[in-house]
């Protein structure tokens, strides 16, 4: 479903070129559960951003569901993000003035789905995540765990094939963090491909497949468990 071929990405920091990713090759099948770990600056977030089409590689090829995304223009990439990819961010990125239901509705609104259909789909997702009684609350009226679950609902409302989570538990306490991870794993068990970037070895260790990044490359010494 996903194939990365020799992906390179570098940034200019001052006059210095920092290689965030060096010759990354990666292959994933539909329904995979992958965790990316590694120290700060190892390139794991950059890798996630490239998987999510938020960032473009300098060289290399990225195939998403058989399409070479590196050949797409900006608008086509936006549509691909909308239809195939869901994001979960460390800092939730909920719009504070909108209610939980309105936040979840945003991708449907951008896709131009009829309002009547949107209401039904949002209600279904809220039900599924146990947030039905929080639908009309604003983010500041929700706990951290609830906020992240609203963000997950927003990421999955378009029924994407790929769900990307960047430190999803980074701003949460242990209990809420576990809840969020369980929610993500539930979605994975229903077939969504899940990629989690994390510092936390305990959370990273739960994935069926784990990679560790060091200095922009996948650490070959690290055992790769599970099937590709």
């Amino acid at each position, binding site marked *: 479903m996903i194939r990365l071929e020799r992906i390179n990405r570098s940034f200019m920091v001052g006059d210095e070129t920092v290689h965030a990713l060096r010759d990354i090759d990666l292959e994933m099948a539909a329904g995979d559960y992958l965790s990316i770990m590694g120290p700060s600056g190892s390139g794991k977030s950059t890798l996630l951003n490239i998987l999510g089409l*938020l960032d473009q590689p300098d060289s290399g090829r990225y195939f998403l569901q058989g399409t070479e995304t590196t050949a797409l223009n900006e608008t086509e990439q936006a549509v691909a993000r*909308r239809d195939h990819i869901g994001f979960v961010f460390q800092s939730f990125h909920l*719009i504070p*003035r909108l209610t939980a239901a309105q936040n979840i509705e945003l991708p449907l609104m951008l*896709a131009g789905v009829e309002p009547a259909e949107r209401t039904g789909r949002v209600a279904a997702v809220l039900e599924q995540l146990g947030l039905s009684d929080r639908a009309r609350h604003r983010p500041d009226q929700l706990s951290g765990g609830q906020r992240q679950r609203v963000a997950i609902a927003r990421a999955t409302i378009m029924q994407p094939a790929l769900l990307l989570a960047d430190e999803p538990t980074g701003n949460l306490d242990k209990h809420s963090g576990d809840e969020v991870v369980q929610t993500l794993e539930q979605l994975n068990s229903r077939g969504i491909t899940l990629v989690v970037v994390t510092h936390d070895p305990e959370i990273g260790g739960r994935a069926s497949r784990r990679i560790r990044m060091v200095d922009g490359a996948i650490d070959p010494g690290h055992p790769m468990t599970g099937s590709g």
Partner: protein
Amino acid sequence: MRLDDAFGFGLRALTGARSRTWLMLLAMAIGVASVVVLTALGEGARHFVANEFSSLGSHLVIVIPGKVETTGDTPPLVGGTPRDLTLEDALALERSSAIQRIAPLVLGAAPVSYRQLERDITVMGSTADLMPIRNLELARGKFLPETDPTRESAVTVIGDKLKKELFGNRRAIGEWVRIHDRRFRVIGILKPLGESLGMDIGDIAVIPVASAQSLFNTEGLFRILVQAEGREAVSRARQAVIDIIRQRHDDEEDITVITQDALLSTFDDIFRSLTYTVAGIASISLAVAGILIMNVMLVAVSQRTAEIGLLKALGGRRGEILSLFLIEAGLLSVAGSTIGLMVAYGGVWIMGRIYPDFPLLIPLWSLGAALGISLATGLLFGILPARHAARLDPVVALAGR
């Protein structure tokens, strides 16, 4: 994305951040209101001055018998002309469409007496139209009646100074005074207006022109005062006077026609500088309004870079994100301008109540300029930062940088 969703999103963005929205509305409203009110004040001042000037009788053409050949000389009081300017000449001038009204003038000095008191004063023979032409005002009584100018009538209107000297505090209206060897009944008293045409009108007696002609035993007129239809008609009136009189005087141009050119050009200078002043006031307040709006919009949109990043991550296309912000800025600009207009009209109404004599006018062009500038700056500075943010890398925008 559907249009109603875009409007809903914009409305929620505006109502969701109330203090910011109020600030922006305030900036817009102040901008629009200040432009409209300031230009209304400027236009009002301009009209005020214009009215004051036109009451000075600037559409006046003065016809004097005799041709002045050399310039720089004062017009001769009585020219040694082959032909007098007659009452018939004067009445013939009324035919021209450029001429609104005329007043023939016969002037002479004569003793005026009432009982034992006698004074030597200037006697002016004219018609009823002298009053509007010279902007004379009556303190009491009536002016000369509007009858056939060629008919004599034993009535007189006297200046206030003459009235005091002859009558003191007693009633003058209806009394008979003797001018030279004839008796005239006083029918009106002029208000003091100071000098007019170089004469102290406090010290004169006005009698019908035909009576003056027979009193001084002359056919010729001292002058004819001609009032043009308007400021623009002055030169046409002047030409009409010359043509008509020449025709009547066997094709000989034996008159001098004076227009108040100097006064008129001064008037135009003042008028023009006032127009520039109003335009200056308007453009300064427009610039201030524009900068005010620009600042608030810039701050507001750059605070929302992260939101734009999120919309990109959720699959919003650049055009969609821009149209969201365009609609939001448009709603804001329209609402702010509307409030500004209401404030401006309210302010002008209140000022009109306080100073009812001052003509306050809201010129249409200032409405257009105020609305145009606020909408343009509102949209421009709502869109420019949003466009910048929509072009950013989603990763950078999400970080809110």
